[in-house]
């Protein structure tokens, strides 16, 4: 592929290959978002029409203020802010609620940025163990809270739990966990990085006090982008405005939100997110189709002798962790290209996005592929298996 400028290649992976990369699939931009990048990726940093009261979520042209209102409604919360990635959402909430030495309950599959957000304020993470199906339950969460209470004499300050995790793409008992959080009166943050924007998500119905989503993982938006939404009750705390006054000049910047560092997600990223919103709003209604396609693919994948699925079955998400130790890895052990033979074979069939060289446990995501592409993908795996003498049922 030609280079745009020296050493930076044109990115045409999405036009030339079926990309099964596990964590970026639903962040793939819509054509509307790509057009927004063409038009607004030109030095625009949201300041063109920034007028009183000088805050990102108040800008009327383009209608950023309106987008914030629609976004809050879309996720079933009272207020929403755009943030540069889900991680900044965790950070804002943790920084508002947690102090040095406080405990925060997270999942044993929590994303590392949840750890960092807690560490940043001197808090301590306490992980809830998974059950035998790699699911976090309300019951296990309650047990962990009791344990923390016994050990520290205090309740945890926050519970942060994934709706769907990044490792298996499993659905966790988010409603049960929310119920436990209410019983113990501990605020609850639902990490919906892999659900908000691909399936219907309603924060209040879920019982969440905070909802965090990822633009570049599930909202057809460029990285970094994300969403932090909350209730009016908690908005006062997390979206609190600055009280600081300059000692020399007496300056104050009243409306700026401390945790948001004033303005949050700016420029082309925000406009692209807004441009994708109508399509995202529509696509969540078709999540069932995505699940049908994912399960069709997995059924075909499992016809290859030795293949296993490590995620919960049947699939409730398009991100799946698979185990090919009993199939493709057997070939890799003696192949001169080792595990890379598998990548080579996939690439020959115009498929990319697997973890290059991995032939044991790895992840894939089928989100957004058409039925033709899903069938092609399934046949491609079977074709490779047959080529190397594996049995395909």
């Amino acid at each position: 592929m030609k280079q745009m400028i020296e050493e930076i290649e044109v990115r045409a992976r999405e036009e030339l290959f079926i990309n099964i990369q596990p964590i970026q699939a639903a962040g793939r931009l819509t054509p509307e978002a790509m057009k927004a990048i063409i038009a607004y990726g030109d030095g625009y940093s949201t300041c063109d029409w920034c007028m009183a009261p000088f805050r990102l979520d108040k800008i009327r042209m383009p209608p950023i203020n309106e987008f914030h209102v629609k976004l809050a409604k879309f996720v079933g919360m009272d207020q929403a802010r755009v943030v540069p990635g889900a991680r900044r959402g965790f950070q804002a909430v943790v920084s508002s609620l947690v102090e040095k030495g406080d405990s925060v309950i997270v999942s044993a599959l929590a994303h590392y940025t949840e750890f960092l957000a807690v560490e940043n304020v001197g808090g301590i993470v306490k992980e809830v163990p998974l059950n035998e199906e790699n699911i976090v339950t309300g019951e296990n969460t309650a047990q962990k809270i009791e344990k923390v209470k016994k050990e520290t004499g205090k309740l945890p300050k926050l519970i942060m739990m994934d709706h769907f995790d990044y490792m298996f793409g499993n659905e966790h008992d988010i409603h049960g966990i929310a119920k436990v959080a209410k019983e113990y009166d501990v605020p609850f943050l639902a990490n919906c990085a892999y659900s908000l924007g691909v399936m219907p998500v309603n924060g209040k119905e879920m019982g969440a006090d905070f909802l965090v989503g990822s633009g570049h993982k599930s909202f057809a938006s460029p990285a970094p982008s994300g969403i932090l939404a909350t209730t009016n009750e908690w908005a006062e705390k997390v979206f609190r405005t600055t009280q600081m006054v300059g000692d020399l000049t007496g300056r104050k910047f009243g409306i700026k939100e401390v945790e948001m560092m004033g303005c949050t997600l700016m420029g082309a990223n925000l406009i692209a997110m807004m441009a994708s919103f109508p399509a995202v709003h529509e696509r969540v209604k078709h999540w069932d189709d995505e699940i049908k396609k994912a399960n069709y693919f997995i059924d075909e994948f499992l016809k290859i002798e030795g293949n296993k699925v490590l995620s919960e079955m049947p699939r409730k998400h398009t991100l799946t962790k698979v185990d090919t130790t009993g199939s493709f890895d057997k070939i890799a052990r003696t192949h001169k290209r080792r595990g890379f033979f598998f990548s080579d074979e996939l690439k020959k069939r115009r498929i990319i996005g697997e973890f290059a060289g991995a032939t044991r446990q790895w992840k894939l995501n089928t989100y957004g592929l058409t039925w033709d592409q899903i069938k092609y993908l399934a046949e491609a795996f079977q074709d490779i298996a047959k080529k190397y003498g594996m049995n395909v049922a």
Partner: protein
Amino acid sequence: MDNEKRKSWRNFLILERGKNCTGKKLYNTVIHYRWLAGVAEWYRRRAADPLHVGSIPTPGSNVLKRSNLVLLSPELMVMTEKAVEETFAALFALTDLRQIFRDTKPTYRFNSEQKRQIKEIIEKVRQSLDVIEEELTK
């Protein structure tokens, strides 16, 4: 804009464009300068700026050197606007083509609707290029 600032701009423009620069002509010149300076810069009031002077404290400090200044004719404005508009239209149409590649990869077996869309996109890009050529080379 406060009176003092308006006055200073008026004086600057009269100096710049000559003493006959009044009335409609002055108004058009103001519009022209606003365009040069950038709408955002003209209107912006920064919360961080206690003096509320925007980021161009001296009128004209960011415009071209006087010797390079030309009064842009309305025809020129329309011509460039049209060409720029068609440049974006062509880029957007090609983005729709990218989406067709994405939807049909890696076999690119197009159905009748996609074939129709491809023809439409190509036609649209051609038309845009024609307008750009016509506007910029006439």
